[in-house]
């Protein structure tokens, strides 16, 4: 029975409660001066990793929980939040302000980290609430050649390195079993993330945080996709009232429905 070495990637995104605005160039969403926080799905995976240790769920025990985030200098806040919630140490891959990574680049970055840190379980959010690509976990599993369990609503550990993951599907649940090492992505109903308490926030400031750059992993932020245009969804057109049945019929005829 091997001890768990969990890797929990996190992303700094625009806070869920903020209504995003499209920038003037119509190339993306305005991020300057907007409140940011940890991606809610990542928060679930942070919470789950800490709970696996606290509840002693893994028979082999948890040896290490490490978090990683790639983003501008402010992404450190998100890593510190994760550390305050109970993660042991963090890695910050610093990007320039405004530099964005595609899911494939992130997956390659995570693959290199998994190999360097000798992780055997990667717990990550199923998607980020800004790009909503929902690809990173799957791509990472593909690159590593590991089994994957997506949209987990329950994670259990069994005999001989087996992991049982329950996912909610239409009209029921589906349970998948795989052996470590594996990739698990988290869904909304997995748990309720905790609020970091002040003493833990203070302690988190002393936890180890390694700084790296993309070049350390032999990667660049080169993009394979090009965003052509970002627009607001169309505004809903209000309906109209008709006086009587005759009015309704003539309206329907006018619209060509009759």
């Amino acid at each position, binding site marked *: 029975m091997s001890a768990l070495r969990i890797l929990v990637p996190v992303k700094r995104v625009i806070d*869920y*409660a903020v209504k995003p605005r499209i920038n003037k160039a119509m190339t993306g969403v305005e991020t300057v001066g907007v409140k940011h926080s940890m991606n*809610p799905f990542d928060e679930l995976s942070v919470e789950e990793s800490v709970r696996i240790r606290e509840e002693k769920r893994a028979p082999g025990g948890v040896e290490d929980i490490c978090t990683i985030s790639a983003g501008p200098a402010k992404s450190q806040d998100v890593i510190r939040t994760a550390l305050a919630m109970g993660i042991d140490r963090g890695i910050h891959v610093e990007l320039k302000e405004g530099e964005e990574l595609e899911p494939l680049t992130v997956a390659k970055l995570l693959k290199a980290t998994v190999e360097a840190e000798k992780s055997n379980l990667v717990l990550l959010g199923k998607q980020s*609430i800004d790009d909503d690509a929902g690809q990173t976990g799957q791509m990472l599993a593909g690159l590593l050649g590991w089994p994957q369990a997506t949209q987990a609503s329950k994670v259990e550990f069994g005999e001989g390195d087996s992991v049982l993951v329950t996912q909610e599907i239409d009209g029921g649940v589906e349970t998948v079993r795989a052996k470590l090492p594996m990739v698990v992505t988290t869904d*909304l109903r997995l748990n*309720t*993330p905790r*609020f970091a308490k002040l003493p833990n926030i203070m302690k988190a400031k002393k936890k180890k945080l390694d700084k790296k750059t993309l070049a350390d992993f032999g990667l660049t932020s080169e993009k394979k996709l090009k965003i052509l245009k970002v627009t607001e969804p169309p505004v809903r057109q209000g309906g109209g009232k008709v006086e009587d049945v005759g009015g309704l019929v003539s309206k329907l005829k006018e619209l060509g429905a009759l």
Partner: protein
Amino acid sequence: MTPPNPVLRRQVIAIYKGYQAACPPSMCCVRADGYPELLYLGRDYPLGYDYFRPRLHKAFMSKAGERDDEAIKKGLAHAEFVKKDATADPFRRYYLKRYRTLRKRYDPDA
């Protein structure tokens, strides 16, 4: 109409207005923990007390004719549930709000 079960009647009034109102002063049965009752909790209702109070009253009045003990007990359990929701700690409510927002955002039928 049969007279209501006095024990249950007292419990219903207790959860509505508080234990003081439910018992005559001679029969002092104020709970030591001072657990707040629905009418009191409504003072902080987001839409205002004037919105909350008639609605709470209506909710209780609509079942005033209930004489079936089991149904009353069910109603009491529901009142406890409503109370628990109103007294949930703010962090839990914050997460609940976020959870609901996200669920609705990604699943329009939810």
